[in-house]
């Protein structure tokens, strides 16, 4: 047990799982000699060789598509998409092939395949590197979507994703790679998919987030506590499967809900959460569920991204207004 950053936790998980299971191979752009542009795979090629940690040609479609074939051949590929924005180049393989092969083959070909990808903003990347595109994948039946917020969960959920026989898109917060640091056991362990984490217990408002936004939510909750508003922060951990009972439990207690995400408002995963919650908890709700998100515009250049993605101040003001909305 020791403090590790999220990227260290991910690297440790990959190392331990590759050690345990020789069927695990890692493929992607610059994952080998360089160890990934964020060093998530640093040292893996030295340890496991060029056959198990492969620097691929620059083509996301065949990186994902060949990963399907590798899985069918009996391996358990872990694919690194260098940035989630470049999943668009592989969208036909992910959305129509990865997610459907098991169904299309009537169970003959399961796909134990993990696609790891950094996403989200706040670190001044070039264009198209920071978009929070998770909603494209949560609308893709057959694909599981995981988005840890802590180093502890990153290691445990990645291990679980790698053990899972269904394809999993594993989203890693660009901003959290080094900023996020917490206690992570040195040994192997798993965190189950589909169980949310109550990041902070509260009674007045339920604030739902995932990935990097959880940290923003918690800091906002701290400030709001100062205003006498008790916020329960839910870290969803996985978007599919979704922990609906866990959400209901919190909402039935607070009756007020805010959802926080980096993606643009319209059609973001927040819209699904609102739709589900109002269906499941309608009579508990004391006021409209609010969504705190980026606007309906493309992700901007780094110089203005802080105006784009929701920050602590904005969450504080919107949630305190919510807490004061009369029922």
């Amino acid at each position, binding site marked *: 047990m020791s403090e590790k950053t999220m990227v260290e936790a991910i690297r440790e998980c990959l190392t331990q799982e590759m050690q345990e299971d020789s069927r695990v191979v890692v493929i992607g752009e610059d994952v080998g000699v360089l160890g990934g542009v964020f060093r998530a795979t640093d040292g893996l090629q030295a340890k496991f060789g060029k056959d198990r940690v492969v620097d691929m040609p620059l083509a996301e479609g065949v990186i994902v598509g*060949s990963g*399907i074939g590798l899985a069918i051949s009996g391996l358990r590929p872990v694919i690194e998409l260098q940035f989630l924005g470049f999943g668009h180049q592989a969208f036909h393989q992910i959305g129509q092939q990865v997610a459907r092969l098991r169904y299309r083959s009537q169970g003959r070909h399961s796909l134990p395949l993990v696609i790891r990808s950094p996403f989200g903003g706040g670190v001044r990347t070039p264009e198209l590197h920071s978009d929070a595109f998770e909603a494209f994948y949560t609308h893709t039946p057959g694909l599981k979507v995981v988005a840890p917020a802590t180093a502890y969960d990153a290691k445990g959920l990645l291990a679980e994703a790698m053990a899972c026989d269904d394809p999993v898109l594993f989203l890693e917060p660009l901003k959290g790679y080094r900023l996020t640091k917490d206690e992570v056991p040195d040994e192997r362990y798993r965190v189950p998919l589909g169980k949310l984490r109550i990041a902070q217990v509260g009674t007045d408002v339920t604030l739902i987030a995932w990935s990097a936004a959880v940290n923003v939510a918690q800091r906002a909750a701290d400030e709001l506590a100062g205003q006498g508003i008790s916020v329960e922060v839910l870290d969803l951990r996985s978007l599919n499967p979704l922990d609906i009972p866990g959400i209901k439990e919190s909402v039935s207690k607070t009756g007020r809900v805010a959802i926080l995400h980096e993606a643009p408002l319209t059609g973001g995963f927040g819209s699904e959460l609102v739709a589900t919650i109002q269906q499941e908890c309608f009579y508990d709700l004391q006021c409209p569920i609010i969504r705190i998100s980026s606007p309906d515009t493309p992700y901007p250049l780094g110089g203005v991204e802080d105006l784009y993605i929701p920050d602590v101040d904005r969450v504080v003001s919107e949630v305190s207004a919510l807490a004061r909305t009369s029922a």
Partner: protein
Amino acid sequence: MPMLVRAWNSAEMSISRFLPDFAPIAPFSRLSESGILDSGSAPMSDAAVIEALRYMVLTRVFDDKATSMQRQGRFGTFSSVRGQEASVVGAATALDPKRDWIVPQYREFPALIRHGYPMENFALYFMGNPKGGTIPSEVNMLPMQISLAAQIPQATGLAWGLKMQGGDGVVITFFGDGASSEGDFHESLNLAGIVKAPVIFFLQNNGWAISTPRESQTAARSFAERAIGYGVEGVIVDGNDLLAVHEVTASAVAKARAGGGPTLIESVTYRTGAHNTADDPSKYIDQQELEKWQQKDPVVRIENYLRSKGIWNDELAKEMHDSCAEQVDVAMNIARSTPLATSDALFNHVYAEPPQRMLDQQADWANRNGGGV
């Protein structure tokens, strides 16, 4: 193309120039149009040829049956192999179903049947019954692919994975001249060249992508030439010559098994039927060209070869046709008597470990549609 030459003004440049060649290529072939073998030795035994012919005839019979059933509304939209029987069967017979894999597009009926895919499943698939997708565990194939070229990266990864694990299996993936224009083709051949994957890219150039003629698909004189741009070998074969297709594919399989890596095979043939049962080629097809190709019928050609060897006659042909018809009827009857799927067919097999939300929907659907029973 004079422009290409005129524009350059420096002699030295030639050493570093690549000018496209537009001189026609003679595809590799062994049989004359009338079915006479060249001076070389036959690449297949007579028994093997007759077995291959049977798959070709089986295909004709199935295509005719399925097409007429489709007209009666008892079969879905489907694409016949008409005109390409030698191309598909010549390639398929070069494979060892025990260790080799097929990654199909959708126009390779005989290859899938020979590999072990139950004919009734093939029929059920096109009747729209999800059960048709069922691939027996010992049959080395992927489901048919509708998203053009999407299967090519998968075939490449599969071959690469088999090699990584020390197996000696070879993968063949089929796709059309149209599919070759997709980015997936490029990305896959490039990767296969790098990792020397034991994969055969079998491009069926049947002259058409629905109504789009091959000339509108690329300005290159051949698709096979693209291989060298990936450090891969390419070859063009007469796709209506069973022996030639078999020989080329068998060589590519042997090469791949021995560690020689991928091969791109362009099988030049012609779609003498409609694109599929929903298509009306009269809107776009060149009648003369069509007739020219109908003269080159691959079944007639290989039958003539057998006749020239004195081991084939109308009687044997009729026997073969009848036994194929019987086989097709059996399969179609099984398919027709298979109950239509219930609503559970929407949910089963989507996940190995289904999310609760989907399971709730499954129960809900079952209650509404009696699908749970």
